[in-house]
């Protein structure tokens, strides 16, 4: 496919810091290669802004190959842009046409305060993870080889699919309720399905759900938007599994 160059108009959310009042700014950007990624396009915009002695747009990025979960962006009304199963760094300008106006906004959630421009603080996810998203291992020096525990292939696959979550927060961003249930569902499931995780399963689900509520995320109303927008295709089955785990743990656990 021959590369083309397009001219676009960008409407980008600019906000100095967490407490400042933000607003949409409009920028024109010419000669954008359709081969460039969305983030490269933003790099190009920032170069232009720097040359004009203006403040560049702050946005999160790291690996730029769709695995670190660092990039975000609500592009033209959708988390990670118009393609499915991709992160923003995997989105290319060939998905847009000459003359397009593209809205770029940060994730919007009470639990993800804006740090600057398009950068949000997703440490709420870290705190949920710290509340129970782990397996306690006694490092006595006689740790058992993980492969010595037989795990059915089906369960291993399901756990792996859940563990594919990169914690980018697209589920929260896209949910009309700002709910983090897909993220927490995935993190609960990846352990609940494995024998190593079953030991602490009850405490884990209760603590993680409690932390999720404390962070101020909304409630799941099963619209299914998160599953559609998740770049890693995390299934709603994980939310149901968490609900199941949480119901039974609430009814039977001591706490």
């Amino acid at each position, binding site marked *: 496919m021959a590369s083309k160059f397009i001219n676009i108009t960008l409407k980008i959310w600019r906000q100095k810091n967490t407490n400042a009042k933000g607003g949409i700014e409009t920028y024109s950007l010419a000669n954008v290669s359709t081969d460039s990624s969305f983030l490269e396009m933003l790099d190009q915009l920032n170069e232009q802004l720097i040359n004009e002695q203006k403040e560049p747009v702050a946005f999160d990025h790291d690996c730029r190959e769709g695995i670190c979960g660092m990039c975000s962006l609500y592009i033209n009304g959708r988390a990670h842009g118009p393609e499915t199963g991709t992160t923003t760094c995997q989105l290319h300008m060939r998905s847009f046409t000459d003359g397009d106006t593209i809205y770029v906004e940060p994730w919007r959630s009470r639990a993800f305060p804006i740090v600057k421009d398009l950068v949000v603080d997703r440490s709420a996810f870290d705190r949920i993870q710290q509340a129970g998203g782990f397996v306690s291992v006694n490092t006595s020096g006689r740790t058992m080889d993980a492969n010595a525990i037989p795990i059915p292939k089906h369960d291993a696959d399901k756990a792996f699919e859940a563990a594919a979550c990169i914690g980018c927060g697209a589920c929260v961003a896209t949910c009309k309720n700002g709910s983090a249930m897909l993220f927490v569902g995935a993190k609960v499931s990846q352990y609940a399905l494995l024998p190593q995780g079953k030991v602490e399963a009850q405490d884990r689900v209760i603590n993680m759900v409690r932390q999720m509520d404390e962070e*101020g995320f*909304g409630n*799941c109303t*099963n619209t299914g938007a998160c599953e559609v927008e998740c770049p890693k295709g995390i299934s709603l089955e994980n939310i149901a599994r968490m609900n199941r785990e949480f119901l039974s743990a609430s009814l039977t656990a001591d706490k």
Partner: protein
Amino acid sequence: MALTGLFLCTFLVGHLAGNLQLILKTGEEGRRAFNEYAYFMGHNLFIKILSYVTYAAILIHVIDGIALTIQNRKARPVRYAYSKPGANSSSASRSMAILGTLILVFLATHMANFWWQMKVKEAVPLHTYKLEMDNPMMGAANAELYYTHVPGIQPIPKDGKNIIEKGTDLYIKGTNVKVAEGYRDLHTLVMDFFSKSKNEGALFAVLFYLISMIVLAYHLLHGFQSAFQSLGINHPKYTPLIKIIGTAFAVVVPFLFAIIPVIIYMNH
């Protein structure tokens, strides 16, 4: 939401079964069947308990729904300038609160029109019967008498007429002598309400009912299958079936509810 919602789905089925008697049987037979049913629903202890459970379920469903909606709105204090929710979710799933509110408005009018009249106002006429009696009580031969419900004593058809056996108490028209409790004539109340010849506002009532049933259908379209997901029931074997049943339920139940006032409107 899920538990109360599913309970209210079962309530809809029960209510629908009762309502269908309005159109399945016609004439005097239909009137009697429906009024007997209404009497049973108002006097059976089990039904009485069930009705309080239903009121509670509606209240909890509403209060829980409002509380969750407030929390969910707080979870996103600044809204997106540009959002395309249609790309990833159904409009029904995103509109449960507004659909539920509309259903609540319908429910208020619905209860004012029927439940209030029946339970509180007692403005419902009693079910009267033309009776010819071999041995007329109090000299009321061939008079219009209120047909009564006394457990264990049923009218016996004799030569094509309903005869009430001696010993059954009656309410005599014109005399205000209450001999026994009669059926409240809910059937006539409902028929007149939706009848174009009896009620000038019947067309509006029927249209409002129809729109409300469409709203209910959308609410159920998402609500039925969503309840299972909330309860943690999501399984490759059962979920496709639950979704099919949910869709069928959301279409069939409101449809059957909706055709009843339409048929009454057209025929009366």
